[in-house]
């Protein structure tokens, strides 16, 4: 097995590929097992058969990296095929093909939701089996592209993500008010750990046996899904050799897994987003490029399993350029729209920015089982994000009640302006982050700036400490919150993961183009943004309900302690924010909450 791994004779890069593809077939039906074995051998694949799902799991654990792909029947007496799929998804990173005589759409969908890369109907045909190498190949391509180091990169990705995730949780549990200090120390730690973690990841990988996983699930259930954190789980599991990182990593996968199971229009899909945000939080400003690329990796890791990584690739590339952007300063960040277009390619005009965004989201959302529905949901958050571009001035002046009729959806966010100013004020790295945030907000009218200035000062103050730690997305949100004072803050925070993803991607990808477009961007964008604003209004209106749902769900996932003093309901929260708008001192807590919620 080691030999085969080293030689990679099942690797797409060898000449014989796909000959020698190592396939594990799991089916309780002996007849089918025999037939499949024969068929696969005819395809020059290396076949191992197994009539019990549990045996298959043992085999997979025993022979790590001993297989390239798994083909499993859906209905098996000892373990449901979906369960096996879950385990394989959590423990190994192998493509799994499900098969069944049952072609009911709901069944197939379930398989796909559980992460199956394909779903074959019995009787399975030779020509279908001949073609299964594509799943292995696709996965490998994505891995290679995601990270240049080919071997074990998946692990690193996941681990990395989980570390951050984990920390995010830690923060959640902690005292909100001391956020600044804590984050700073964490940054240091993070710096230290960052690379050592990467190198030690492979060794540290844990085999999550059925028993261990069961312990894990029990612990999660005991704690309550909305309160779980790696540390708590670890304590409950009481497994001496297990580290918090192990648990965190597994928890992350588990959440991903669960999120996949959610129905497409279920707000829980925002799960991924939570994680993403968390990552950003603790990232030190210095490693900005690094941070931003990490979320991307995450995406790719997630999408890998679903087979969507094209976006990630782009984003990643962009990520490397971030440093440059930082150095160049504020100006480079200004042109927002260009980046988006670049990402999506086909949307040249600023107005279409929305459209492009949507497509972005869409791609992100696609990992979710039901493509159509999900994409729809995904778009909503995005639009909201854009809706921030709406000129604040009007809204601010309006009484709170006015906002409500429109739905808090009308989000007047002068965030751009604020950010820009903030940048100029604070040359530090944190500022840059803020700027990046701004970027993604479309370049809005500069006239607004003066108006916002007062708010800005507050927000900047609050933001900079925390914001620099946070990744662009989060930073943005924070900044936005103080400014909004109105309905905005809640909405922003609640925006599901997709937005974040989209956001990060934008940021990263944009860097380059931004620099080029700085000057022209400013002028041209102003115009476009107006129109966009109108569009946004409409969109917002339509989507209010969805947003709310997301928010609520989101909160559920969070640690209750965090929100103990914060009303869960949108409306309440809005008020909350409004009340504190005037008081600069109080804003800090709000921001923190925003962070966590985000």
């Amino acid at each position, binding site marked *: 097995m080691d030999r085969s791994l080293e030689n990679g004779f099942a690797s797409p890069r060898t000449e014989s590929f796909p000959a020698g593809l190592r396939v594990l077939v799991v089916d309780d039906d002996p*007849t*089918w097992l025999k037939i499949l074995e024969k068929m696969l051998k005819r395809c020059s694949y290396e076949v191992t058969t197994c009539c019990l799902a549990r045996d298959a799991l043992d085999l997979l654990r025993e022979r790590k990296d001993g297989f390239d792909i798994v083909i499993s029947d859906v209905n098996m007496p000892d373990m449901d095929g979906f369960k096996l799929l879950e385990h394989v998804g959590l423990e190994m990173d192998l493509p799994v093909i499900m098969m069944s005589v049952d072609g009911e759409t709901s069944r197939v969908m379930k398989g796909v939701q559980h992460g199956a890369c394909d779903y074959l109907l*019995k*009787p399975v045909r030779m020509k279908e089996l001949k073609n299964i190498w594509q799943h292995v190949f696709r996965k490998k391509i994505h891995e290679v592209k995601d990270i240049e180091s080919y071997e074990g990169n998946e692990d690193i990705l996941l681990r990395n993500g989980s570390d951050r995730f984990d920390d995010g949780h830690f923060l959640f549990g902690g005292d909100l008010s001391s956020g600044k200090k804590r984050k700073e120390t964490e940054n240091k730690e993070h710096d230290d750990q960052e690379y050592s973690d990467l190198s030690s990841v492979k060794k540290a990988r844990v085999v999550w046996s059925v028993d261990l996983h069961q312990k894990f699930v029990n612990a999660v259930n005991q704690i309550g899904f909305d309160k779980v954190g790696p540390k708590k789980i670890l304590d409950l599991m009481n497994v001496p050799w297990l580290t918090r990182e192990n648990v965190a990593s597994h928890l992350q996968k588990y959440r991903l897994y669960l999120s996949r199971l959610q129905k497409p229009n279920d707000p829980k899909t925002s799960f991924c987003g939570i994680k993403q945000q968390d990552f950003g939080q603790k990232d030190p400003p210095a490693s900005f490029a690094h941070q931003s690329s990490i979320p991307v990796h995450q995406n790719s890791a997630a999408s890998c399993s679903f087979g969507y990584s094209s976006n990630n690739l782009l984003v990643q590339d962009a990520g490397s350029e971030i440093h440059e952007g930082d150095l160049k300063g504020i100006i480079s960040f200004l042109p927002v729209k260009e980046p988006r277009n670049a990402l999506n390619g086909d949307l040249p005009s600023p107005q279409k920015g929305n459209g492009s965004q949507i497509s972005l989201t869409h791609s992100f959302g696609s990992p979710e089982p039901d493509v159509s529905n999900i994409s729809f949901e995904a778009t909503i958050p995005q639009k909201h994000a854009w809706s921030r571009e709406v000129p604040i001035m009007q809204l601010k002046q309006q009484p709170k009640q006015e906002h409500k009729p429109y739905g808090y959806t009308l989000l007047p966010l002068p965030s751009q302006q604020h950010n820009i100013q903030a940048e100029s004020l604070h040359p530090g790295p944190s500022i840059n982050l803020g700027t990046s945030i701004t970027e993604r907000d479309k370049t809005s009218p500069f006239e607004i700036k003066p108006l916002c200035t007062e708010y800005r000062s507050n927000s900047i103050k609050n933001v900079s400490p925390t914001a620099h730690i946070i990744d662009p997305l989060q930073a943005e949100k924070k900044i936005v919150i103080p400014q909004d004072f109105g309905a905005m803050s809640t909405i922003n925070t609640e925006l599901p993961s997709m937005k974040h993803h989209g956001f990060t991607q934008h940021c990263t990808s944009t860097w380059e183009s931004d620099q080029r477009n700085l000057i022209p961007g400013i002028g041209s964008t102003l115009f476009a943004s107006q129109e966009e604003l109108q569009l946004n209004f409409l969109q917002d209106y339509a989507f209010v309900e969805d947003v709310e749902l997301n928010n609520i769900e989101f909160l559920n996932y969070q640690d209750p302690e965090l929100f103990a003093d914060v009303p869960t309901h949108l409306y309440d929260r809005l008020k909350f924010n409004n009340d504190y708008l005037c008081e600069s001192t109080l804003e800090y807590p709000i921001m923190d909450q925003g962070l966590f919620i985000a």
Partner: protein
Amino acid sequence: MSKLDGWFVQSGSGSGSGYLDDQFIQLEELQDDANPNFVEEVVTLFFGDSTRLIFNIEQALDKKPLDFNKLDTFMHQFKGSSSSIGAKKVKNECTQFREYCRQGNGEGCIRTFQQLKKEYATLRKKLENYFQLARQAGPTETACRPK
């Protein structure tokens, strides 16, 4: 070969009189020097395994009230198994049976199961004859699929 009359491999739009479908042809195509008796081995496996399944279903049908979920699960297995050798008629009965399960129609289930067993027995008989004849005819003849 025409000498094996009474059963057909019928693909797709056949009249429905065929006992076997394309899958059986697939099996024959898989038979090669490495596995000269591949088809027969597979068919033997199928009948061995399905005997157990039929027994399970009979027991489940004896229990009142009927557990349609359980019956459906069993029949799902049976259907999957039948598809392995392309036992077309048996498979059709399985589908019908599961439909009755969904309707909660115990009468229909029992009736269909009787029919299923009949088709199953017929197929078994025919296939036994087929392999016997094939063995007599020798390997060359076996390769020639009867129509």
